[in-house]
């Protein structure tokens, strides 16, 4: 069939079928239909054999089923296909966390955030692992970077407020918690933490700090 005119032609997209299946898999994952999600990801993987995302999806489905070994294999395949696949590292971190290997989880979350400072799952995961390990030095930096890009994210603001308090940076903690309450006056956790921070501030002033 002979027809060709530059303007008449939509962009050739050879990944459309793959994209539909990947999107569908992600939607089914979101509604907890792991059987359909797995079916879609497997088909997507056959259509896009070099794409890491179907394997990330398969890893998430395995995680939902608590099949940690299967999840790890899937996330590792995704990493092999794309060494810069942030989601795959976040997946590996979640597997490690489930296994109680916080050190490994911490490293994988960090690796994910190096590639994608915007990844909220990794950020909050890192915060939780940091709490479990009582190590907060690096997480503060990532939370601050994230907040610069997403001002007004109260869950991250609250986490940062808690970290500042642990570091005895009470003034900063007080300010950010007040900001949280301005945005979300019903946030009880923030109100309680602010009360604690203000109490610590008074104590610190009394000590002449």
């Amino acid at each position, binding site marked *: 069939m002979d027809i*060709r005119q530059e303007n*008449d032609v939509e962009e050739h*997209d050879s990944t459309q*079928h793959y994209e539909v299946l990947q999107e569908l898999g992600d939607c089914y994952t979101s*509604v907890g239909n792991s059987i359909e999600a797995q079916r879609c990801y497997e088909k997507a993987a056959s*259509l896009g054999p070099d794409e890491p995302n179907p394997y990330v999806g398969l890893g998430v489905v395995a995680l939902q089923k608590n099949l940690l070994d299967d999840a790890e294999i899937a996330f590792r395949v995704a990493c092999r296909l794309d060494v810069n696949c942030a989601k795959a590292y976040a997946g590996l971190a979640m597997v490690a966390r489930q296994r109680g290997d916080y050190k490994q989880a911490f490293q994988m979350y960090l690796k994910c955030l190096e590639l994608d400072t915007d990844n909220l799952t990794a950020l909050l995961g890192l915060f939780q692992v940091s709490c479990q390990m009582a190590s907060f030095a690096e997480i503060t930096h990532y939370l601050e970077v994230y907040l610069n890009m997403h001002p007004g994210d109260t869950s991250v603001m609250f986490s940062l407020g808690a970290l500042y308090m642990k570091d005895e940076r009470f003034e900063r903690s007080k300010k950010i918690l007040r900001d949280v309450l301005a945005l979300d006056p019903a946030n009880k956790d923030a109100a309680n933490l602010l009360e604690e921070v203000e109490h610590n501030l008074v104590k610190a002033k009394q000590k002449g700090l």
Partner: protein
Amino acid sequence: MAENNEKKIGPVVSVLIPTFNRPRYLSEALASALRQSYRNLQIIVINDGGEDVSDIINSFNDSRIVFINRKENRGKASSLNEALIRAGGEYIAYLDDDDLFYPNHIETLVNALENETDCLVAYSDLYKVYCKVMPDGSRQVLSKVVEVSRDFDRFFMLYFNHVLHPSLMHRRDVLQKTGLYNENLKILIDWDMTRRLAFFTDFKHVYEITGQHYTPTGESDRISVQQRKDKNEYARNVLAIRTTRPAKPWTKIEDMSIIFVADLLNQQAGETLGLIWHHTFYPYKVYLPLPEADFNRIDTDMPNITLVPVNPLSSYAQKIDTSLGGCEGEYIVIVPSGFPVEQMWVEDSLYALINSSVSRQGFELEGSTDTFWAAVLRKGDLQYARSSFPNLSVRESLKAADIALRHPRPEELPFQFDILVKGVRMAEKDGNWAKAAQMLEYIADNHQNKLWMKTLAAKAFYKTGNFAQALKLSSEVNQQRPTVNTLLLEAKIYRKKRDFGSAIELLERAGQILGDPIKKIEIQSGNP
């Protein structure tokens, strides 16, 4: 059998399926033609001297099939002509041996031609399927896009094709006017036919997707693709098509006569004529006023030249006057030897004249100067000026006859739609999606092709982050004529809104189209 009789109403449609060495796909193509909801069919399969396909034809055991088994390969145009001679249908439809009709294809087009229009031709939209051919020959679908969905545009059709051949249906009797397929052409034979059809009828564009044609990734073995690689052959075919003039009377196109005036039949004159040949796509005939003694000096393959005998002592104006007497065209172009002829050299001004509602007006051509004066005029105006003021120069006589001459304004030029779409493409390339979206909305409101432009605008709005507008447009398109791309786009927006149920529903529909659209349509229509 009962079903065959049940729907055997309406005119007979002859479906022509030429085939050459693609038995695997022929079987699928033929099955799709036989599975039509419209049953009153004559299906003519022409094997053009390729691998024997008799077993495939016989396996269908359907009396509606006529099989022509040619022993030697004589090309697609010749195959179609042989089939057309055998065709008994009131309407003709075409299917390539590796493409598919959806079950609604014939019914949709017959309904349009019988009930919705006076046009003699209708066409629908088709999916272009990008696929990977697997080792066993099966085709893995990678994407399906409606690549061409352009409303009928006669001026564009003269320039190039915009109607896919398997989407076309026309009355059989219109071939008495157009003639059969040109067997001297190797490629673009379908454009040659659609272009000739445009001389006699408008085309009705039906906004339904009624079939699919395949494009394998990587190196294509399609004959037309292979033959396109020979650039000289391609150019030869384009020229042959653009200079084809079906027999008159033409009902939809007015002829153009080019009076070419040369003092001497020298190299410059030859070059200008050659450029006219290469750069004119509107149907024309060249009138060459020459002393008879010079006639035998003309040695050219250029078609559509009429030699006009003139006195060797004739003036420039007299040569034009003599030629004008024999000109067939409604539009007359006067052009001197040595005039700079480039692409669109005459069509820009001609288009402005065709669409001008002002009488007694002509348009000078781009590059026209006092020395090389060139213009396009209505024949009646020029005749009036020359008969009223025969002793003046042509230009002066027009002035004296009150026939205004000017250059076309930008908005009067042809292909406004294409110029704007090119601007959109550039904006998209630069990442300026907001500008692209704005332009697309303007085009949709002012230059037809509403559905197509809406589809592109939905994507542009999505890219700008205006999801509300993207959702509105994609949803409107999906209600009228859903495609995989627009379903996918709408689903992505619902997913962003965390409405996963709606997103899943849309994505499942897209997945069904990508999987097996025929099954889907059959389920909906209740056909087996």
